């Protein structure tokens, strides 16, 4: 029987009969604003990503790492992937939903004991497409290597989130790498500025973040992006170089919704 080839099936045939699928062709989608930070414009499957781990200059940690990590997970989540968070009982779920993580496909796993941590993360790799981890303990080299190999094989992206703003007590920002995971891509917030709040008026509305990306292999070339996390509409968008405020060219009185009256 002669097969009828139509354009869609032909494209599929090309995909199937391709001799080689490079690792960089297997990407998970990311938000358009973040693609400039990625080595090939997308997040390669199986990558180990560190966010806010303070590469070298651990002293002045800037706020925003958790939001950037959530924004990174938002792309795959919106495309239908599951996201699991290990540890981080303090994660703001409303904030996760606002940057675009689908809470119907988000699971939160309690922080396991250090000796069982690797087994839990390994169980999630392959079953979900993005795993956010925040280990409180140094990860053993052997475990880190095993997890990296498993993630590469199964195509799960592992995102290690740096210390949150525990405000002086609790975890401090670790120097990169000592936690053990071998990171392919490293995102660091180097500047953060809130807009919309004054001295006694307004409220936190938009935040401009300067994010630097570095890493190894294809991601070794440093990149830098100015982002609104979030912008006035609550989305994650790229920042126009000419526009320093979120309100430039807009009618500020119309943009600021009045505060709700308290009954």
């Amino acid at each position: 029987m002669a097969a009828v080839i139509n354009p869609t099936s032909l494209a599929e045939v090309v995909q199937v009969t391709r001799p080689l699928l490079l690792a960089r062709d297997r990407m998970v989608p990311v938000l358009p604003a973040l693609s400039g930070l990625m080595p090939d414009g997308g997040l390669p499957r199986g990558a180990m990503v560190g966010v806010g781990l303070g590469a070298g200059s651990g002293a002045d940690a800037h706020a925003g790492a958790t939001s950037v990590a959530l924004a990174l997970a938002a792309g795959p989540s919106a495309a239908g992937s599951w996201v699991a968070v290990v540890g981080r009982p303090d994660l703001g779920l409303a904030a996760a939903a606002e940057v675009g993580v689908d809470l119907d496909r988000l699971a939160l796993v309690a922080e396991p004991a250090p000796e069982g941590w690797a087994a839990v993360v390994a169980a999630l790799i392959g079953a979900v497409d993005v795993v956010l981890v925040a280990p409180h303990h140094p990860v053993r080299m052997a475990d880190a290597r095993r997890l990296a190999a498993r993630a590469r094989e199964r195509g799960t992206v592992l995102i290690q989130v740096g210390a949150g703003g525990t405000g002086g007590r609790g975890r401090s920002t670790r120097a990169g790498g000592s936690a053990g995971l071998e990171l392919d891509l490293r995102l660091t917030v180097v500047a953060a500025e809130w807009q919309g709040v004054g001295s006694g008026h307004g409220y936190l509305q938009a935040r401009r973040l300067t994010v630097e990306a570095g890493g190894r292999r294809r991601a070794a070339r440093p990149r830098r992006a100015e982002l609104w996390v979030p912008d006035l509409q609550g989305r994650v968008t790229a920042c126009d170089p000419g526009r320093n405020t979120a309100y430039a060219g807009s009618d500020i009185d119309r943009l600021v919704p009045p505060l709700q009256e308290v009954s």
Partner: protein
Amino acid sequence: MGGEFAPVRTLVVRCADWPVLVSGARPDEPVAVIRANRVVACSPAARRDGVHEGQRRREAQGRCPALVVIEPDEARDARVFEQVVQVVEAFAPRIEITRPGRCAVPTRGPSRYFGGDEVLAHRIAEQVYAVLAGKGWPGAATVGVADGPFAADLAAEFARQPVPARTPPKCEAKPTPDVAKASNFEGGGGVVVVPPGASEEFLAPFPLEVLGRGALADPVALVDVLGRLGLRTLADVAGLPAADVLARFGLEGRAAHRLARGLDERPPDTRLPPPMVRVEAVLEPPAERVDTAAFVAKSLADELHARLESLGLACTRVGILAETEHGESLERLWRHEGTLSPGAIADRVRWQLDGWLNGSAAHRPTSGISLLALIPDEVVGATGRQLGFWGGETARDDRAGRAFARVQGLLGPDAVTVPEPRGGRGPGEQIDRVPVHAVDLSESRWSSGPVHGRRDPAAPWPGRLPPPSPAIVHPQPMACDVVGPDGEMVRVSGRGLADTVPTGLRVAGGACVEVVAWAGPWPADERWWDPPTHRRRARLQVVTADGWARLLMVEGGRWWIEATYD
């Protein structure tokens, strides 16, 4: 009925509490089957203690502390139900199984042969009782005969538990002593036969909620709207002019209207004829074991689904046909309230084969299955309803669910949680974390409406902070000091005003950080009508010189860091 075709006269056998019965429990043991934290079936003893279907696990255990909770096992339910189906099959062909515990069969030919619907119904009931009595549940089954499966199903249910308030006036259970001994029907109520043409009269007093059993796309919403329009019973719905119902509620409303009038939900001439699609596989060598045949069934189900999909159709009733080496032919129809996805078809084939191959010796095929075929028996146009059944998404949810179960095995059942929407003013109050075993992962928790007894996320919640929300909500608020220019603690008055400008923030005795921007305070006076849970707080947003934005909260003169905008 004004020239309408009468629906096919149907007999329905219902086995109440089937999943409980199958589990081997006695009727006097309090047992409940719980799926996704909800009771799906319970024993009569549990029901006496106040347990009912749809209840939450915690509530059910509260009502009945001795409750034994068992896991649902549809494969086992279906396998055991095959014994009942085979008994019914001895009387009439073309049995249709809706779910384990309920089957329907058209009665026209058989009742003429056996001498009337009542005789047939009682003979079937007698045989089914004999099967169930062997399991210790003699009164669990009921039989109803009426025009159309919807009315027959209600008749069977009515035979067990008459509708409390409004008893249908004429169509009461008529025990016929010459056929079966009345003692056999004790505890079950027996058989209800609605005379031909009297279905509308029989259905009239039933409440609207029973429409949910018909194959309507979204019965809950429709029943809700009809209820708010002041319609309480099926008689109220049936009394409306058909043209007006169609104009206002569309096809869905027409289907409900037809059901209420005792007709088929669709006029017969608008039904799609099933296409000549038959997928089959020859098993070589013949399959003696269920798993071998079920493996083939999975690919058959996928093929059937793909072929129907290319025709723009979805299957609501599928015929499963098996032939053995010795020429025995086994056939069974399975119906689904929605449309059958490939996974659902494959499940049903597996259950059916399990029932056949592992059944009693008298009914078991004498040799291996050599041919397996699937025939779509009833089809509907494939609409958006199929969306949820698309294989990719479900497979993904399944895979994630299995991994979560494994993590629960490693860390304990409450270690994996998923977000669920709640209402509230504080940053951590708007979304709650519920254990993953308490929810159905394939269903959206955000699209469902308000749940009774839960803070409604759609309520206005005045005083709630506008987005963006903080990315870190501290599980335990951290104590801090907010100081003014003179080094004094900032106080918020009862009118919700700060007495001075906050200029410094000191966390737990650390160094004082300068406040560069602030907004607020926004007071929230919550649950003032209930003194024990009353909370009076005010919230303040500050940005400190080191770049952190915080959400502070003052309560009883003390300041706390409630959340951090990380």
